[in-house]
């Protein structure tokens, strides 16, 4: 499944690196603690978080994550967006809270088996 398959389902707005929407995703990780994401996320995961500051880009890059979904209608600031474009990290935003965004992704990924 690709990131683009979730755009409608999660009402995603694409903030940076549109090309990344075609990337195959292998899982989802939900956390707002950056050390936890460093330790426990896996390459190819989509990361759901409410953090918006620019260190999320470094973490996603280090872990080779498929993209970042920022929840709750929060928007990444300009410096985060610039860094994400430079490092080719796809950042999307959704008005949904983390629970709903994760739930919808879980359903869809599970259906696919």
């Amino acid at each position, binding site marked *: 499944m690709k990131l683009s398959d979730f755009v409608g389902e999660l009402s995603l707005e694409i903030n940076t690196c549109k090309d990344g929407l075609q990337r195959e995703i292998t899982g989802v990780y939900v956390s*707002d*603690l*950056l*050390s*936890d994401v*460093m*330790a426990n996320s896996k390459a190819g995961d989509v990361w759901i*978080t409410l*953090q918006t*500051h*620019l*260190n999320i880009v*470094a*973490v996603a*890059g*280090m*872990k080779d994550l498929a993209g970042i979904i920022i929840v709750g209608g929060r928007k990444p600031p300009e*410096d985060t967006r610039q860094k994400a474009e430079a490092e080719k990290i796809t950042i999307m935003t959704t008005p949904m809270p983390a629970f709903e965004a994760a739930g919808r992704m879980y359903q869809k990924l599970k259906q696919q088996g």
Partner: protein
Amino acid sequence: MPINIDKEIEGSFQIIGGNFVNAGEASTQLKLLLSKLGVDEEIIRRTAIATFEAEMNVIIYAAAGRMHYHITQQGISIKVDDMGPGIEDIGLAMQEGYSTAPDWVREMGWGAGMGLPNMKKNSDIFKIDSVVGEGTTIEMFINFP
């Protein structure tokens, strides 16, 4: 996969305290180097976690620091020393969940008390030495398979 290291490689990165903009720069460079050398993915993953956490600690707590790496046929050794406040109680600092980070750092999702434990978990040898008022030195060794 054999590791393409015919001679030992070493180098170092400067890390500036408080510079959250470039956070992850040193560990990313090191990760790229290891990838280029054809180092095992799992070793790269562990090194990335350990060095990123060490780098973040310098940025969060210290005025400045340095990350030195030394790659041999046997593995990679990393030494991070900083000019920081030092750690009063290393035993406490090593406990998962313990942190002295200020609130604004915690709001960024750092300072969860996972940094030092993550470093230890991901290295085969982990040493920490600290002098209050002077700084902290961390040495890590990760064996190649």
